[in-house]
């Protein structure tokens, strides 16, 4: 651990490593997660889900369930008082299925009972008439299949008008001369499996009727206000009648951007006039949220003899699954970052997301950049080999930086120290190989005791990646903060920013302490009831946005306080907006204003792995990284994000994949969906590159996603170096290493 992790506790200002305010309760088990909520007279809700990936829904007979002991409500789509569909960006997802189910596990009916067991038993007695339909599971054939959404919900929103069926969005970016030839060309086809957020706290929450027709929902989520705006219309209520309160979040990673139990719990609570709690079990959680888009990427890189990229041509196919979720933005991100943080004059990028009957996909840490980074970094290594240039040299030669531009034509106006992160990561000392014999725990296979050194080869890999910070393409994104100064000199901050484990509670407190110059700052509960929206805890945006909003509200409060003679109570709310973005041109994919993305952050990573090439097992030995963080509000928290984000990318590289058969998930458990353990994940040496972002408050940048983007390709590069195999698909399976 570096000295940055030693807490300095004078005041807890911006720039200090302040221990997490929720840290001790979490490690001692005292922290209340959303699944721990209780209310007097509470009922338990249960969701009846489709066993089919695609079927016509006939009659739903609830009669046998209704009179069962303890049962208070059994609801179907007929009981929804308002809108029957909802969605994060497009209203294409039924609250409860009617006419058709489009994915395995789609909600069909709801039960509320005194005891969860009673609810489950009643659910078993509900008879749903299904007429199974051929599931559309091959994304490469989606555009020739019958449309799953004949009303084309994502069309007519300013995107390219693609007449083919089952298109969620297609985007073409054309820059320069897409036919330009180089001296050397390399190509490859890359595949990324379905990764899950695998948060440990399953979807859960408590809905409490307010006795006046409205409802309070306590839930683990990522954006309180957008939940409210989706819940209220389905209940036929005014937004103020629905109050969303943040309950303890057990991990999110994008998987809580879409709704889970919010509308269902509220429907049951209003119907029974009792508080209703819903907690998904692990299996249900795997079907109860969206996943990272699986992708297939065809790439061709053309370069001059001296190593400069001349032309990059990439085709990306993303499987969006049954509903749109945030797929349109993922499609655009994948296209924007397809080349990687490199300068190139000519590019042709086509990114398409299709509907299928596979599990729905949406937001996950890295959001479109993860998939393409795996491809472009493999391509850069191939190119280095074809040109016989050192792979790090090749990256430096092509590194993008301020003043350079993306294939969308957007000029980098803020900081983007790509060459710096490359140099700093490359300069980190790689440890010597440990001697043999050694404890098998420190060899590939770990506790499995499979080798004493036989078959083990060592490889070192390197990768660079980048991603945008904030919402893009003209979205009016803002964050509100409200500050109260009290007569005793203390302050309270209200902000609806979701603390999802990333440490935003500390950020809010640190900014307030910095601006107000007092230590005694309280953070009010995160809720829609007392303050305007904070926007989403996603897109690496929250630190930046919250810093701006809290700073502005604190400064306004101090001004007010001065005006009022420094004695009265002050209460002000301010809204912060980042620089405006504009959409991409639907035909050329070029920017229509100064920027389509707000800003960027990059990272470079070096990985040492040992691979048992005979058994295909891996031990990642060492990871070193340099990351562009703007200005670290809380260096210890930044390092935590780097370590966690790296582990998540390592998981995708080596083991994490949702498997399906005919659209049905076959490994919906932590027995078979594996995430890295402490024996799989080495310590991470991280260098924070602090170059203040000019557009951001205090020069901060989001830090949560770049490590996830860059670690998957860096780990696989180390595996390629150790094995000499192409390894063009993640997660890499033992079979791929062995060559079966």
């Amino acid at each position, binding site marked *: 651990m570096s000295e940055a992790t030693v807490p300095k506790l004078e005041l807890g200002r911006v720039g200090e490593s302040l221990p997490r305010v929720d840290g001790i309760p979490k490690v001692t088990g005292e922290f209340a997660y959303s699944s721990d909520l209780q209310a007097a007279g509470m009922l338990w809700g249960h969701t009846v889900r489709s066993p089919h990936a695609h079927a016509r829904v006939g009659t739903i007979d609830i009669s046998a369930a209704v009179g069962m002991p303890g049962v208070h409500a059994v609801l179907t789509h007929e009981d929804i008082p308002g809108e029957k569909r909802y969605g994060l960006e497009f209203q294409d997802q039924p609250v409860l299925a009617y006419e058709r189910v489009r994915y395995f596990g789609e909600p069909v009916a709801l039960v509320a009972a005194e005891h969860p067991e009673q609810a*489950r038993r009643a659910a078993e007695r509900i008879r749903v008439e299904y007429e199974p339909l051929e599931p559309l599971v091959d994304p490469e054939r989606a555009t020739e299949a019958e449309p799953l959404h004949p009303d084309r919900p994502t069309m007519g929103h300013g995107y390219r008008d693609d007449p083919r069926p089952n298109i969620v969005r297609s985007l073409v970016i054309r820059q320069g001369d897409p036919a330009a030839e180089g001296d050397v060309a390399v190509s490859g086809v890359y595949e990324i499996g379905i990764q899950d957020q695998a948060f440990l706290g399953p979807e859960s929450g408590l809905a409490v009727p307010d006795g006046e027709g409205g409802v309070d929902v306590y839930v683990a989520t990522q954006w309180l206000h957008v939940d409210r705006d989706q819940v209220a219309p389905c209940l036929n209520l005014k937004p103020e009648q629905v109050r969303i309160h943040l309950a303890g979040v057990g991990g999110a990673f994008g998987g809580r951007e879409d709704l889970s139990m919010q509308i269902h719990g509220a429907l049951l609570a209003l119907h029974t006039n009792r508080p209703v709690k819903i907690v998904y*079990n692990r*299996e249900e959680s795997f079907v109860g949220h969206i996943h990272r888009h699986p992708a297939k990427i065809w790439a061709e890189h053309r370069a001059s003899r001296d190593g400069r990229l001349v032309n990059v041509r990439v085709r990306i196919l993303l499987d969006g699954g049954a509903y749109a979720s945030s797929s349109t933005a993922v499609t655009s991100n994948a296209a924007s970052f397809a080349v990687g943080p490199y300068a190139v004059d000519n590019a042709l990028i086509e990114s398409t997301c299709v509907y299928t009957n596979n599990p729905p996909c949406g937001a996950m840490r890295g959001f479109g950049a993860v998939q393409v980074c795996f491809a472009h970094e493999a391509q850069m290594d191939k190119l280095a080999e074809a040109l016989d240039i050192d792979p790090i040299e090749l990256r430096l030669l092509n590194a993008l930086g301020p003043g350079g531009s993306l294939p969308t034509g957007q000029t980098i106006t803020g900081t983007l120290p790509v060459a710096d992160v490359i140099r700093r990561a490359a300069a980190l000392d790689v440890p010597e190989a440990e001697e043999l014999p050694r404890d098998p*725990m420190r060899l*590939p*296979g*770990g*506790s*499995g*005791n*499979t*080798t*004493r050194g*036989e*078959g083990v080869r060592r490889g070192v890999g390197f990768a660079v990646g980048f991603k945008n910070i904030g919402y893009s393409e003209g979205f009016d994104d803002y964050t509100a903060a409200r500050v109260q100064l009290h007569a005793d000199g203390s302050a309270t901050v209200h902000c609806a920013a979701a603390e999802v484990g990333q440490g935003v509670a500390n950020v809010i407190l640190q900014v307030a302490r910095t601006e107000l110059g007092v230590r005694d700052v309280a953070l009010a509960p995160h809720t829609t009831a007392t303050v305007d929206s904070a926007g989403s805890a996603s897109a690496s945006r929250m630190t930046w946005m919250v810093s701006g909003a809290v700073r502005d509200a604190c400064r306004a409060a101090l001004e007010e306080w001065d005006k009022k003679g420094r004695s009265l109570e002050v209460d002000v709310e301010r809204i912060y907006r980042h620089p405006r973005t504009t959409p991409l041109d639907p035909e050329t994919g070029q920017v229509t204003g100064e920027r389509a993305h707000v800003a960027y952050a990059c990272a470079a990573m070096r990985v040492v792995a040992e691979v048992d090439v*005979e*058994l*295909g*097992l891996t*031990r990642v030995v060492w990871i070193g990284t340099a990351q562009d963080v703007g200005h670290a509000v809380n260096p210890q928290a930044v390092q935590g994000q780097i370590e966690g984000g790296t582990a998540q990318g390592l998981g995708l590289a*080596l*083991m994490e994949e949702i*498997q399906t058969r005919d659209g049905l998930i*076959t*490994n919906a458990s932590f*027995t*078979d969906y*594996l995430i*890295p*353990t*402490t*024996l*799989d994940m080495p310590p991470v040496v991280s260098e924070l590159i602090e170059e203040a972002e000019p557009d951001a408050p205090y020069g901060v940048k989001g830090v949560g996603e770049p490590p996830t983007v860059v670690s998957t390709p860096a780990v696989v590069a180390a595996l390629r170096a150790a094995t000499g195999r192409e390894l063009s698909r993640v*997660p890499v*399976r*033992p*079979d791929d290493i*062995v060559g*079966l």
Partner: protein
Amino acid sequence: MDVLTPRSLEQALRLKAERPDAVPIQGGTDVMVELNFDRARPAALLNLNEVAELRGWSRQNGRVWLGSGLTYAEAMERPLAEALPALAEAARTVGGPQIRNRGTIGGNLGTASPAGDALPPLLVCGAEVKIASVRGERIVPLPDFVVGPKRNVLAEDELILGVSVGGTESRQTFMKVGPRNAMVIAVVSLAVRVDGDLRAAFGSAGPVPTLVRAGLGDVDSFPQRVAEAASPIDDVRGTASYRRHALRILTRRALDRCLV
């Protein structure tokens, strides 16, 4: 659901005879998963944790007696770990520390999973399972005890008392392959013992853990023979061809370890 807690073996056997529908529970690391996932709703549980006769281990005429209540954590401790090194290595691969503290050999036999990690080391050590009921005791060699995936020969009034194993202090080892370095269900596993002859037993490569034997002169062909004895399938954890391949590699490495 009733929870019956006998205080002696005699009581346990009587209760099992009276309530054949009562599911025995030792560490509960399999039983509680079934209950929590709503896959089983037994009318009663027979809690064996207070039956002292089922606990611990002892030496008996050159063999070792393992009570059905022996935990993995206990199997990893010396001197038992020195007497049965393959079992100790297998125990170390099971779950995390919590599971190893609770999970038992008897429970692994009760579950009789093709992936049960205690079973291959017991097979190569010639394990005999001792079973009892109010009707009396019987001894069943382990290969005959497991009759199919998650099926064993226990009658509804019977309990497992423990296993008797030989081969102590022989050269033996256990290996388990999984796509991560701890806490995995075996994609394939193997125990090997060299002691007068060659013995290998594999898990997760057929419907039941299976013993393969050969003479000491067959060292070179043994890896291939073990791989051929397997009847693996493709499933979410791995492919049949990988399992067969891995068995070949593991057997060769295990022989190298045991023949030095």
